[in-house]
């Protein structure tokens, strides 16, 4: 099977703080993979580095369907077929969702008729009709924002979808709906990476492979048994099994008074 996403030995730092360290991942077309890891393990950083957000020091390589990603800018990567569903989708006042999707579709080379048809069909399917002519993500609930992200994915049909915490902030029915949508979008032309710190969404979704991420790298990969292990023992048990010590950072102890001295009153 063809490799959709290949990430090799990825190391990422922000302001000289190491976030990812020797991260490697291979996801074939047609598969759904889940990356699970505790808060702060570097999951969102991984998504943003692949998407092309600036401000990171990056080493290593990543390719989509054989094309190098790191030599491209954010938009070029998207046009190649990469799409991130954001954990915190930003509100964009005044820009309407329909207009946004039409512009994006044009950049992807879709003709207007096809773009319009997809917007109609997918908005119906995800109940996004009422939001099409409203500002992108403006005044949407957490669940509606995630639904909007999935809707955008359905319209733009990426080759590789990175779904960052697509289940956080959702009630159980919404989690189920999102999971079903992802399953329904499974296709030989799509690879999906679901990033989550709960195993909850995996009850409604059967990933082909589960990876566990701790301290900036994949420490274990497997099938559904891995999710079950995490469900019962948490990341602590997994650390013990793999013999990974918890690194406790001794940051400076901050007293309330420190905050005052740091407040820039003269600004």
């Amino acid at each position, binding site marked *: 099977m063809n490799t959709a996403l290949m990430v090799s030995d990825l190391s990422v730092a922000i302001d000289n703080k190491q976030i990812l360290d020797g991260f490697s991942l291979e996801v074939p077309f047609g598969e759904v993979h889940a990356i699970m890891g505790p808060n702060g393990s570097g999951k969102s950083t991984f998504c943003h580095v692949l*998407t092309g957000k600036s401000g990171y020091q990056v080493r290593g390589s990543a390719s989509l369907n054989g094309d190098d990603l790191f030599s491209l*800018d954010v*938009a070029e990567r998207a046009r190649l077929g990469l*799409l991130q569903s954001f954990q915190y989708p*930003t509100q964009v006042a*005044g820009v309407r969702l329909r207009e*946004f999707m039409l512009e994006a579709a044009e950049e992807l080379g879709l003709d207007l008729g096809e773009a319009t048809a997809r917007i109609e069909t997918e908005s119906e399917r995800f109940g996004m009709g009422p939001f099409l002519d409203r500002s992108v993500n403006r005044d949407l609930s957490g669940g509606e924002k995630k639904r909007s992200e999935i809707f955008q994915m359905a319209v733009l049909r990426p080759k590789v979808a990175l779904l960052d915490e697509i289940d956080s902030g959702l009630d159980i029915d919404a989690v189920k709906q999102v999971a079903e949508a992802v399953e329904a979008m499974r296709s030989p032309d799509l690879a999906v990476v679901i990033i989550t710190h709960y195993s909850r969404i995996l009850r409604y979704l059967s990933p082909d492979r589960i990876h566990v991420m701790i301290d900036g790298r994949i420490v274990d990969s497997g099938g559904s048994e891995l999710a079950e292990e995490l469900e019962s023992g948490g990341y602590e048990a997994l650390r013990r099994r793999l013999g990974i010590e918890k690194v406790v950072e001794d940051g400076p102890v901050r007293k309330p008074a420190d905050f005052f001295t740091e407040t820039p009153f003269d600004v």
Partner: protein
Amino acid sequence: MTAFDAASHANSKSNVPSWRATQMDSALEVFESLEEPTGFEEDWRYVDFDLPFAELSQIESPGEPLSGGPFVVSLADNSGRVLIVDGQVLESGSSSATVSTLRDLETDEREYSVVAVDHNKLAAAHGAFSNDGVFVDVAANHLMDSPLVIEIQGVTPGSASFPHVSIMVGENAEARVVVVYRSADGVELLMVPEIDLQVSDGGRLRFLSVQNLDHAATNVVHQRMTLGRDATGRLGEVGLGAKLGRLDLGVSLEGDGASSEMVGLYFGEGSQTLDYRMLINHSGRNTSSDVFLKGAVEDDAQSVFTGLLRIEKDARRTSTFETNRNLVLSENGKAHSVPNLEILCDDVICGHASSVGPLEDEHLYYLQSRGLSRGRAERLLIKGFFQEVIDRLPIAGLEAPVSEEVFRRFVQAQEEGRVA
């Protein structure tokens, strides 16, 4: 054309009613006693006003009117048209309101000017030299369903003119008025219009102005709106043109239950200065007001927003808010935003929000992550930024031309590499 002195003053008042001539005489004394703005005064501190009256002339007869124009043509569905050229009323007619000119008024029944003559040198000049004007009366209970269009033009090089418009909305009436400012291409001139808007008890006014002067013109508008009991005033202010374009706006919520809204947008390019000064004064009880003003500057342009919300001692249950958002799109562009509150009553809800900065990286990143090129993402954000205002303009019909003009300016700057 003649200079601004006593001889020309005598000439300019020759055709006005005697009550008005008396007013002009006393205003002339104030005009002569006041200094021109130097830039050191608090209300001129960000603004470079360099058009001394000594270098300007008074107009004896108005120049040739301009025809067409991008905004007026979109207002074919109107209930009347007024044309003022170089301060003189050339056309006035309405199927939905009574329109008089200064010469028709035998007495100063409704107070020719509500702007204090000593407000500044320019207001005094208006008081001393304004010798024509239109007076619109919308009868009580009358509903105007399409707007009265007032076009204010300046065409004569080196002139100073003083257009005067007064709108009176009767009790429980509803009025719609659009003012479009234009001037001849490349012509340096000064306009000091006064726009008085009075809304009687239970009346409603929708008022939209589009300032689209040539970049050689200077325009200082004094605009006042007074609202009676349960009256509503919705203002839309679009600022595109002029070398220096100032809107000096005063809204007075006098009647209990009155409410006002002012939404506006401006886009400065080249070396334009677009300057908004406003005082929203709440004296009635249970009144509410909202100011929502957004603007962008590129090249060396600058904008100024100074907005004071004032709540008087007895104005209980006032609710008021002002928002001013600025995009600075070039290294040399500047936006000054100074919102102020003066609250003399404690039973109120009020607040303000103000921001100055470039397009947000977070927004650009999100749009680009769906495949939009940087340039396209910027254009979409600019459009969206102004769309919020355009959606709220109080009179329909000018959304498309306003949006197109703003967009055109940005796209042109982008193509020429003038945006950072």
